[in-house]
């Protein structure tokens, strides 16, 4: 396909090659001076220099001086992986007043000195640097793509994270549309009572958060609403939102319904139907649901006194029966057995997969503390009720949470520890026993003895599962982990960012979090979205497809191959007085993948910064060296 292409022309580029010792990480294995001497003689190379640390100020300064004096107009740095310092050197070039895209990076650390030694290392480094220099000779200055960005953000999901993100965004001057599937605001937070470790009432937290959102003039709240359509790109998304029939009677003013959440006041505009939201950035705060035990898992569904922790919290909050003993469903509870890690830390071969083949291998993190919190509250409020906790491992991570574990000891909670492969069995009590159930457990704390725990109530500490957002995942092309939670780009370098520019995640849709952590993530997402939209325009890398209109014949092959609908289209234009169809790129939508380049029969399309010609020059250099 490339045989029509002329040989790469030798531009009058003046290439500067800068080779890094990395303090010995490279130079202990690669003879940096030999590489420099070989590269210096290559065509187009004006200077080749070395430095102990190219990323240091003196290293960067060396490049800047050569650019300013006109010695070089293309730059190659041979150092570590581009993920570390490509940006550093592009910025250095920009600071020296040159175009940052006249830069090419050669990785001679991870790809050479980490894995090769001696002569072989020096030779491979030479080849990589030669290829980079050959490409650099063909590089053209590029201009970043600037697209206007709508000063508006959309938050999907109105739990703790969604409400926080909406409020933080609006506080920084960005108008927000908050979309919630149910009729209530507050999410799973509204289904809790006292929050560990501070003892705050969840209802108070929800009320405060929701009031700050409802009273904000820059926030539009849409309840009973779902996103059913998605198009556009960073700064210019278009969402189709479908409003359904509310599940509850409209309220004339906001009202809090315990264990449902806050219902905003209905307005005349709340008619079912589709509406379009044009927005610059999207924060996904779609949250979690509590694991539902299988039929028969620890007796769940078989025996009515086997309930989940969220059930217990609700029953205790809704029907407080004063007395020495806890009363649940009208029955006095003399002893409660609480089983940890239900639906979390599942092990292949030990725990069965669910009907869709999923296994929750992760720790849900919050259940240890939540269970201890419930145990402490039972022991303090109802001293006549005994509490047993059956755990695999216990971890009350986070500030002030260990205190709850200590308190449990002081409150007389008895702990038993089981191994995953030897899980407790929940059985009906023997006739005449007096208790409702018995739990048989092989207790490692009693050196493997099998114990019988008499109980009137068994509470399963169920873990977290992400809500099913497969429709959004499909529409927005979002990455999902094997654990089904949404995957941010990088947990340390780019937290809360999705690879689709302009889309962020916050809260338990990305991992099991406690309320505080969910709100932290929401704050991070809000700040990132606000920073993005604050400038009124967004800058994108220029590594996108470019059509050579002189060569294009309008075959449309590129459009068929394109992975991102809308990035390429055929448009009519006048050429030599004739109306013809030619391909056109919408740069903001182009992923820069190159699928179009591979299929064009006319070689009329290329990806800027990665052109066929540049690659041919690299291949030639590899062959020659």
């Amino acid at each position, binding site marked *: 396909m490339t045989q029509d292409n002329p040989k790469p022309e030798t531009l009058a580029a003046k290439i500067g090659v800068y080779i890094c010792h990395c303090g010995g990480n490279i130079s202990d294995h690669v003879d940096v001076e030999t590489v420099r001497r070989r590269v210096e003689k290559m065509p187009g190379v004006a200077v080749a220099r070395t430095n102990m640390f190219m990323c240091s100020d003196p290293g960067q300064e060396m490049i800047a001086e050569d650019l300013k004096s006109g010695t070089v107009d293309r730059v190659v740095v041979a150092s570590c992986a581009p993920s570390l310092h490509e940006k550093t050197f592009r910025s250095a070039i920009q600071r020296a007043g040159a175009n940052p895209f006249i830069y090419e990076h050669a990785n001679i650390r991870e790809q050479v000195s980490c894995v090769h030694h001696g002569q072989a290392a020096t030779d491979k480094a030479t080849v990589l640097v030669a290829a980079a220099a050959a490409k650099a000779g063909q590089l053209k200055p590029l201009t970043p793509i600037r697209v206007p960005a709508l000063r508006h953000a959309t938050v999907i999901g109105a739990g703790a994270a969604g409400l926080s993100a909406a409020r933080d965004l609006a506080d920084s001057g960005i108008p927000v549309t908050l979309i919630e599937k149910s009729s209530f605001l507050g999410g799973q937070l509204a289904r809790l009572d006292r929050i560990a470790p501070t003892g705050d009432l969840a209802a108070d937290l929800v009320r405060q958060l929701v009031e700050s959102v409802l009273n904000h003039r820059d926030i539009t709240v849409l309840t009973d609403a779902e996103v059913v359509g998605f198009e556009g790109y960073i700064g210019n998304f278009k969402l189709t939102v479908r409003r359904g029939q509310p599940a509850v009677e409209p309220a004339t003013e906001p009202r809090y319904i315990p264990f449902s959440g806050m219902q905003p006041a209905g307005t005349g505009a709340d008619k079912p139907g589709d509406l379009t939201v044009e927005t610059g950035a999207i924060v996904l705060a779609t949250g979690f649901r509590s694991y539902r035990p299988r039929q028969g898992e620890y007796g769940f569904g078989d025996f009515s006194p086997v309930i989940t922790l969220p059930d217990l919290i609700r029953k205790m909050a809704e029907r407080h029966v004063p007395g020495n003993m806890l009363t649940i469903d009208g029955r006095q509870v003399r002893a409660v057995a609480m089983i940890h890690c239900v639906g979390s830390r599942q092990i292949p071969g030990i725990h069965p997969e669910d009907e869709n083949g999923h296994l929750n291998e992760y720790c849900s993190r919050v259940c240890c503390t939540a269970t201890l919190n419930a145990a402490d509250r039972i022991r303090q409020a109802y001293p006549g009720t005994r509490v047993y906790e059956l755990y695999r491992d216990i971890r009350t991570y986070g500030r002030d949470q260990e205190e709850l574990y200590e308190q449990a000891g002081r409150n007389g909670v008895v702990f038993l520890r089981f191994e995953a492969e030897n899980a407790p069995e929940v059985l009906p009590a023997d006739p005449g026993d007096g208790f409702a159930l018995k739990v048989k457990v092989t207790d490692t704390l009693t050196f493997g*003895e099998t114990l019988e725990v008499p109980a009137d109530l068994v509470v399963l500490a169920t873990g977290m599962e992400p809500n099913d957002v497969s429709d959004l995942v499909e529409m927005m092309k979002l990455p999902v982990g094997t654990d089904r939670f949404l995957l941010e780009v990088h947990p340390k370098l780019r937290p809360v960012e999705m690879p689709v520019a302009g889309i962020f995640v916050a809260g338990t849709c990305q991992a099991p979090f406690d309320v505080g952590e969910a709100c932290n993530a929401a704050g991070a997402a809000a700040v990132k979205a606000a920073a993005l939209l604050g400038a009124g325009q967004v800058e994108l890398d220029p590594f996108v497809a470019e059509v050579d209109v002189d060569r294009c014949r309008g075959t449309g092959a590129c459009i068929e191959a394109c992975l991102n609908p809308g990035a390429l289209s055929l448009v009519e234009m006048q050429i030599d007085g004739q109306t013809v169809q030619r391909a056109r790129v919408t740069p903001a939508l182009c992923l820069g993948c190159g699928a179009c380049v591979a299929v064009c029969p006319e070689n009329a399309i290329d990806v800027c910064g990665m052109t066929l010609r540049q690659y041919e020059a690299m291949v030639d250099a590899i062959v020659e060296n």
Partner: protein
Amino acid sequence: MTRLSPDFVEEMKRYSHDTALACFNCGTCTAICPLIDEHFPRRMIRYVQIGAKDRILENAPELWKCLHCGLCTQTCPREANPGEIILGLKRMVVAHWRKS
């Protein structure tokens, strides 16, 4: 099979400080104990936690090996006072012996 009997902790209040449930089974007491006897005193304290009175009475002679040096009490991270619990168990065993 031993059945958990939470009332035993109440019974033990007559014989010693009520600290057994503060124990979180770390085993420091056993590691520091100069007797170097398997699981002593950790297992005895565990039996108090779960109310396994029969098991304590079965293994009662173990209790009289204790030198009351106090190292376990000094090092217990939860201040569960293992030394005092062992002393209390001796009192309980003696009381039962008298009764029988």
